[in-house]
């Protein structure tokens, strides 16, 4: 059996992340990859696919269900252990940090399965980084809009131009040791309160 013959089941309710993992596994030469998202029917899916390796995200509420299945010989034909190597504390730590966990059927050697876990860890980390960056970008955009709104308020109230309005915001932020976006937010909120009739 070549490496690509191992069948891998990815259990993840996050469709984008599941697709990223699936793509990563296929690129690495694993052809038998299945993705399961929903809760109900998980057991049936696992019985049908009979995977060698299961990768599951830690936010998944079905981990307890999944582990209980490994005890029932009638559900899963072969016993499944957790992680590539129980004594490999560093792998376990890296996986939990990344938010992923993996189960493998008993008897598979560490060398054959470790690449799968390592790939899952790195893709989970990449996904988390991407989500964080996306959130940062959203925050920045929202902040910029807020600053524009605050500038308009200042320009109208004090009859100054845009550059002066911005300087005023920046100076206030520096004096109060706060972000410009926060000062802008306060100003917009205050203006709303004053004009709310």
């Amino acid at each position, binding site marked *: 059996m070549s490496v690509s013959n191992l069948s891998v089941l990815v259990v993840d309710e996050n469709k984008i992340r599941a697709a990223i993992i699936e793509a990563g596994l296929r690129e690495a030469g694993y052809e038998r990859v299945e993705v399961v998202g929903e809760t109900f029917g998980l057991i049936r899916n696992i019985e049908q696919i009979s995977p060698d390796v299961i990768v599951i995200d830690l*936010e998944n509420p079905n*981990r*307890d*269900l999944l582990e*209980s299945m490994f*005890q029932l010989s009638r559900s899963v034909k072969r016993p499944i252990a957790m992680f590539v190597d129980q004594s490999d*504390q560093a792998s376990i*730590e890296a996986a*939990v940090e990344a938010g992923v*966990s993996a189960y493998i059927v008993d008897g598979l050697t560490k060398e054959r399965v470790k690449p799968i876990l390592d790939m899952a860890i790195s893709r989970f980390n990449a996904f988390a980084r991407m989500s964080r960056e996306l959130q940062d970008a959203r925050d920045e955009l929202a902040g910029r809009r807020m600053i524009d709104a605050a500038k308009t308020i200042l320009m109208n109230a004090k009859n100054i131009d845009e550059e002066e309005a911005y300087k005023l915001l920046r100076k206030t932020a520096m004096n109060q040791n706060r972000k410009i976006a926060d000062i802008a937010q306060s100003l917009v909120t205050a203006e709303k309160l004053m004009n709310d009739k």
Partner: protein
Amino acid sequence: MDKVRAGFIPLTDAALLIAAREKSFAKDAGINLELAREISWANIRDRMAVGHFDIAHMLAPMPVAAAIGLSPVPVEILAPMALGLGGNAVTVSTSLHELLRENGYDGSLDPGIAGKSLARLIGRRRDRNLPDLIFGVVHPYSSHSYDLRYWLSACGIDPEKDLQIVILPPSFMPDALSRGNIDGYCVGEPWNTASVASGAGAILTTKSRLWQSSPEKVLGVSKRFATAYPELLDRIICSLVNAAIWCADSENHAELAEILSRTEYLDHSAKIILPALSGNIATTGEQRIQDSDFFITFNRAANFPWRSHALWYYSQMVRSGQASFCPENVELAAASFAPDLFRRAVSQMEIAVPAANSKVEGALITATAVGAGKNILYLGPDGFFDGVLFDPDKIEEYIRSQSPRE
């Protein structure tokens, strides 16, 4: 301030940890208690294994399972304290409840009567070739699973053959019940009350009736942490005992329900959380009970980690085929509960602590005063509904007596 990181699952019996933080019992003990909500018991175990959590809200059988090597991730966990007694119930769909009434159940919540009607119904369903009933529990190593199986077996129902028992996360139970995916479940609060309130289910019996004053959640502590920071662990335990005393006062129940209902904790209506705390519980659309024993947070030594409790779980692990019986496992299971650590921690507090580490479960038929140092402590009643005693010194005989007869 010492930072302590704790994991919990959103359930009413996480109350002690949450109250310790929100009512400043932890802060007063110099502890910055950080609480992290988790979605599965497997996560709680893994995060403790890798050192993310120092302590955690845990199913009482989890430290026992870890001690005898049943855990998929190697981790050493001690239970130096229990987080209360009772708190669970068995809920069935309203349609199953009606069928049980037609088969001799009298609405009394008596486990014996309810179980007999269930056995009769299962027999009749089999005669008509109807599919197996399906019950949900939350974890293979949980009181829910062992209590449910014990009850069924004692009523002549084989939990492995006469029906199906499946694992589901606690918060999924009401939904699965109302959709008809399952017919009943054994789970902690607020998930029984939630089904009664929505009209999808009825409470058939309670843990306080199956086994009075019985264990449910414990404070799980990684052995590494307990060994490295004994003085800090003492303070954690004291602050949780103070929280337990506060939680036990009926005057605080409404406030506790409000705290637990918050988004960062149970994220569920306080109205659904309060019944388990007050014991005033709607069991069907029409019936209410007043059960002050439903969930005991402090009284009757509710925080004491009895080794006999750890050993009862072990006996049920053997009974259900999860573990094998051997004297080494008996020792490991017993040692996972640490009554000595509890005694050391509360030695400066004015509370009564049992002098023994184990008791014969079921020996106390009524609340009984026992000497505990200079104080008097009331223990029990602690009986199983079928009247069978569990003597931890005779665990092998006990397991043998429970083996299916040919």
